[in-house]
């Protein structure tokens, strides 16, 4: 996917260079109309590039790549700003029936370890539920809860606790 994007850029870049080369050699330098034409041509390409499906994918790629979702204390409610990423992955799974993901649920280290395993599972299952609303099937999704046993941050303070309360989406089969 990435190679295709680069190739497009190179091709477009070359076309732009070719265009500007043409305009300078065939028209008098002080011909404003010629310059405007060249600019307009460049501008048309530029706006064409913006709407081009490949670049739509690049923005889509960023959303797909966001795979760690954070949660509030004692909560398994998905944050609003994580929904686009979760839905994008759900759609990807829906359109790639052979792909599989693992959802890891985690908590911060406070309180009882086994109860935290239960909390972590609830968080991962919330994300699993959100994936299936976009058409992925339950058999594509596996859930594991590590509770507080795999902390993201080593400290015992509110900043580190925030980083611990998360669900991580891992593609086990792309």
């Amino acid at each position, binding site marked *: 996917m990435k190679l295709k994007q680069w190739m497009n850029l190179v091709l477009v870049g070359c076309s732009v260079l070719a265009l500007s080369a043409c305009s300078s050699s065939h028209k008098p330098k002080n011909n404003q109309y010629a310059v405007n034409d060249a600019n307009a041509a460049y501008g048309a390409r530029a706006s064409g590039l913006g709407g081009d499906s490949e670049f739509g994918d690049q923005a889509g790629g960023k959303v797909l790549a966001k795979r760690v979702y954070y949660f509030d204390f*004692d909560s398994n409610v998905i944050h609003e700003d994580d929904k686009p990423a979760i839905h994008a992955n759900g759609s990807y799974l829906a359109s790639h029936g052979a792909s599989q993901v*693992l959802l890891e649920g985690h908590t911060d*280290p*406070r*309180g*009882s*370890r*086994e*109860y935290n*395993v*239960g*909390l972590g*599972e*609830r968080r991962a299952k919330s994300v699993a539920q959100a994936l299936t609303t976009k058409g992925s099937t339950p058999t594509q999704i596996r*859930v*594991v*809860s*590590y*509770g507080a*046993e*795999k902390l993201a941050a*080593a*400290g*015992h303070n509110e900043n580190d606790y925030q980083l611990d309360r998360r669900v991580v989406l891992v593609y086990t089969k792309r």
Partner: protein
Amino acid sequence: MRKIIYSIICLLALLPYTAFAILSLELNRGMSGAIPIAIVPFGMNGDTPPQNVSNIITNDLQNSGCFKVYGQSALSQFPTELTMVSSDYFHRLGTDNIVIGKVQAVEGGRYQVSFQLLDVSNSQSKANVDLNKSYTVSGAELRSVAHHISDLVYEQLTGIKGIFSTKLAYVVVQNGRDGKRYILEVSDQDGFNPRPLLNSPEPIMSPSWSPNGKQIAYVSFENRQAEIYLQEVATGYRHLLSKFPGINGAPAWSPDGGKLALVLSKNGSPNIYIMNIYSRELTQLTNDFYINTEPAWSPNGRNLLFTSNRSGGPQIYELNLNTRAINRLSYDGDYNARASYTKDGKHVAMIHRVNGIFHIAVLDLDAGTTKVLTSSGDSASPSVAPNGSMILYDTVDGGKNILGMVSADGRIQLRMPARNGEAQDPAWSPFLS
């Protein structure tokens, strides 16, 4: 590949003493009104034995918090036989209880360890001999026999069975070059002789001793999912007990050793089940969509405690195995979890949150009152000693997880930091042998 990893893990399980976390036991606060006792350095013949038996007894009794021990540094007379004991001297020192003894090398590289517990409280300045025993052991058994003597002295003077010969299981977490290592370890009650049972790159949780002390059940994530194993302590041999989809957690042996209570979420959310260890037959006990976890058996095997958030936050409930009736037990505070009965079945040790900090507390079932025992950082995983006198737990100290011990009345406190890594999720063994 899995087979290779499995055999490596088993091989590691059989390794003898390694440099893994050696817990050091530090007494923070002892009991006021502790029983004074003099432990006179035992007499020796010939070469110094590999262990100093009277030192071990001194440390055992001192760390119990119940005794004020006069050891080598406090004494200026060192009798090794009854005839050498001056009652006056010990009266002036401040103690009526005296332990004297000898460690003598005998043939075959073994040692004869003999001791006497004396009582010089009567005014006739003649010592009463309360205990008089002798053992012949190998050099490797010297620590064990010292702990056994501590048990006898402790029980003679307090009336309570001693726990100096018990063991602790716990999980050590170390930062390695390739990420974290998780090690399930068993050590003596004083932290000595740590032995790894399992060394894994993935988490290990919730060790639980069988009632005869010969096996430990635990949760392992070595296959990137939760699985429950039963492992023999002596041989390291283990087998997989539970590997259902979802959570397999919180294993707890029944008092008769034939069943394991555990938590499975295979039907959608975590519920309590009982599995017959031999037939593998499963019985489901709770059946709802709450988080139900951490089952613990009553000493008579008739009830199970468990944690559930069915009232909003985690609280302690009791399930009658006969009637299946469920009663709520904890009403103090908004977070109570990880409960276990004390030996008399009348108290429950648990995690109890106060003002956002997690403490170890004891709930008196008759009175309905909750007593907070710890005052340090967030604490968890309480495990009651088999004589009910002490509770082992993990806590955060200086940003690291360490183990701690607190007496059931809160007066005696010890900390057990690991010397290499962090220690967590401990379980006290039953009485052994």
